[in-house]
């Protein structure tokens, strides 16, 4: 406090008054530290906070942005906890193979938040609106025509048999109110209140971009039942502070670091474990020797101890990679593929067969900082089979750019999107993004991949996907090393869960709106 005296430096009177004022101020700050917890409000903590104005065209293009919008807007179909599609705005649906068309039976008596009735023409309108104003989460390119048969039935004609439609379009596309959106010409910049009129279980009360907070109130007339909590609140907190806020009861749910989960389990909280929607992947430059030789890729697969990677670099919080690419918790997973159990002896044999006996092979592995401990472990493993690896750690955007230009030998990086429709396998084998192996030399694999998109029947599609995974594991266009876990903790007020396969088209966020419905 001494410095303040220097500041004033005149008579005792002024000095005392100022001191008193400051003391009162500081004292009141301390008194004020009591938190205000309202049992009617359910609070979810988030480390980023701001995910955009939660209307379909204005939320940020990341999963959590979509999820905040999905509380207000409904889709035709929606996934339940086990990933099964259940009716939302459509209560039933069927596929008519001869016509390549889906018929959706809409739920009668559903009202928009402003009291207007929801009808089939809203669905028809949404499809045509999205053709004009593309929405990055839904690609309606395959839709030929949409017809309202009557107020409660919609028929969607497709250009071709297209299996991903049911999840990626019907289960992801938010249905817009025609009476509002027909007047909105630039939805990307439209953030008036009426842009938020949906049919969902919640309505937005407030969104604060700077503070990264959202406040919702429940829609008492929700057609699936009244939501359990009156108000739902999202707040922004630093990652390290979230566990403390949960323990103090200021927050009901939020992400926590793996080290904390045992503490929470002991105290009776529920720990939610994410599904395996993300993978760390080793990619090869298939345009170069020796990587274009199948035996070499197999040797690498035998030569890397994937279990060790999980146990050391992920401290056990993850799952060993499946050489068939699709994660083992996916309904499309096929287990009977070559597993490449760690076997340095076999790896050396394969290399010898290729003519690499004796002298060590010098190769370069490109990666970014987050994988540097994985890279070191791989280097050690490969040394044992006669490959000397030079690790180059670059900024991740640079790694991606080099991968895109084929300016690498091997790359260690990762990507998500493994939860949704198995269309992702096509994109990751045949696609031209840098995440893709860009592998076109196996004609059979190529044909099977194209075929799987056209099979609407689930069990039939599974059979084709089994063949695909078998071929993938044999050919190893890329090698999945592991699938990491992430954790969220919640108290037991509301049964939040990770939806299997991710929400909508595969979003790994444990906030399914159905959790709030009895």
């Amino acid at each position, binding site marked *: 406090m001494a410095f303040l005296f220097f500041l004033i430096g005149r008579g005792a009177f002024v000095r005392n008054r100022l001191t008193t004022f400051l003391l009162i*101020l500081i004292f009141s700050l301390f008194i004020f530290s009591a938190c205000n917890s309202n049992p009617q409000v359910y609070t979810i903590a988030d480390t980023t906070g701001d995910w955009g104005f939660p209307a379909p065209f204005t939320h940020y293009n990341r999963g959590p942005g979509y999820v905040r919008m999905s509380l207000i807007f409904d889709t035709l179909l929606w996934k339940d906890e086990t990933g099964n599609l259940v009716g939302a705005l459509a209560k039933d649906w069927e596929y008519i193979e001869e016509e390549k068309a889906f018929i959706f039976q809409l739920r009668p008596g559903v009202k928009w938040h402003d009291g207007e009735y929801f009808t089939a023409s809203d669905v028809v309108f949404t499809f045509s609106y999205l053709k004009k104003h593309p929405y990055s989460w839904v690609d309606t390119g395959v839709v030929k025509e949409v017809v309202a048969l009557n107020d409660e039935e919609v028929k969607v004609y497709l250009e071709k048999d297209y299996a991903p439609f049911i999840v990626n379009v019907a289960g992801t596309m938010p249905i817009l109110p025609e009476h509002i959106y027909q007047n909105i010409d630039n939805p990307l910049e439209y953030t008036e209140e009426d842009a938020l009129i949906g049919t969902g279980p919640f309505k937005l009360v407030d969104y604060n971009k700077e503070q990264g907070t959202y406040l919702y109130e429940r829609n008492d007339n929700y057609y699936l039942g009244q939501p359990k909590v009156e108000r739902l609140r999202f707040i922004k907190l630093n990652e390290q502070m979230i566990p403390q806020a949960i323990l103090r009861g200021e927050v009901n749910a939020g992400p926590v670091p793996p080290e904390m989960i045992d503490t929470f389990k002991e105290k009776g909280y529920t720990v939610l474990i994410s599904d395996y929607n993300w993978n760390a992947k080793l990619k090869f430059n298939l345009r170069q020797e020796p990587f274009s030789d199948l035996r070499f890729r197999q040797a690498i697969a035998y030569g890397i101890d994937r279990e060790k990677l999980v146990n050391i670099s992920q401290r056990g919080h993850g799952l060993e990679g499946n050489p068939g690419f699709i994660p083992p918790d996916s309904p499309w997973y096929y287990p009977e593929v070559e597993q490449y159990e760690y076997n340095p002896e076999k790896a050396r044999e394969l290399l010898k067969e290729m003519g690499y006996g004796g002298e060590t092979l010098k190769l370069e592995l490109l990666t970014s900082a987050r994988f540097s401990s994985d890279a070191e472990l791989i280097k050690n493993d490969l040394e044992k089979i006669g490959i000397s690896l030079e690790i180059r750690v670059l900024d991740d955007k640079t790694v991606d750019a080099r991968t895109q230009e084929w300016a690498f030998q091997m790359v260690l990086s990762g990507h998500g999107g493994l939860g949704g429709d198995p269309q992702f396998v096509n994109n990751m084998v045949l696609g031209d993004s840098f995440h893709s192996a860009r592998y076109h030399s196996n004609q059979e694999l190529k044909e099977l991949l194209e075929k799987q998109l056209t099979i609407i029947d689930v069990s039939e599609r599974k059979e084709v996907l089994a063949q695909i995974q078998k071929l993938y594991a044999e050919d190893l266009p890329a090698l999945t090393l592991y699938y990491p876990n992430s954790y969220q903790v919640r108290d037991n007020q509301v049964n939040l869960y990770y939806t299997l396969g991710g929400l909508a088209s595969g979003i790994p966020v444990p906030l399914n709106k159905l959790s709030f419905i009895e």
Partner: protein
Amino acid sequence: MGRKRIIDYLMALVIVISLNFFLPRLLPGDPLLSIYGEDALITMTPEAKVELTRRMGLDKPLWEQFFNYLSGIVKGDLGYSYYFQGPVLDLLLGALPWTLLLTGLALIISTLIGFILGVESGWRKGRLADQGLLTGFMFLNGFPDLVIGLFLLLLFGVVLGLFPLGGAMTPYSQLTGVSLLLDVLHHLFLPLSALVLTEIASCYLLTRTTVVTLLEEPFILTARAKGIKPKNIRYRHVGRNSLLPIVTRTGVRLGRLFTGALFIETIFAYPGMGLLIYRAILGRDFPLIQGVFFLVAVVILLINFFVELIYPRIDPRVKNNAY
């Protein structure tokens, strides 16, 4: 301040504006990917990608993008952020008040305290108080804001529970008036203290060194001989003369007002420009990067300009080129 100086400033502005456009575009990485996220791109069709590239204006030739950027600046339009999907100006104006509240107050408080302690300490050179302060601040000077911030948050927020764990106000508390103000101050206290503690040391050390040198000057001896009270010598003579380096330093710090608090903003989940810039760079959000750095550059140029104006008022010798 002659016409030549003003031309110098204008030239600097033009160079900064051009660099501002071209440098971010030299960063590796595809803006489309950074904005839409890899997961969205995995499911996105080539047609959708083309449409989105067009929507962001990234399909236009570079010179046309540059021209649009320049004409925007002239019209006072800083562009439209790809990632945040809003006008850049609105984003800046939204974050600016919180940043100024935090870093502005930190700058004022740390400069005032640092200066006063520096003068007092230098005046008492070699005595116990001086030695204590010097050791303490040398010690403090070694810590980055990150460490001090985390320490304060852990001690006062987590262990003692006296202060909130983050944010700039209690969300949806429906507070108004004085209690809202108190709530904001309550949230401000820890991040502000962390910044003040980080910045105070360098100001103190600078002032103390200047004062110690000044005390050996003949005019101080003259002042003492004239029988002027020690307190007046301390501030009217020594203090005023040691202001010059402080003004320079404060000018430099002012430029860092917007960007300097990134770590503190992150630790305390405090809204502000630091995080906005961080996310803009990470997301290759060119319009936002340009907008932020344009603002920073203009402010730095303005500050330089004012510092040059203030100098002769503090120390007339500067004007007469006596230095």
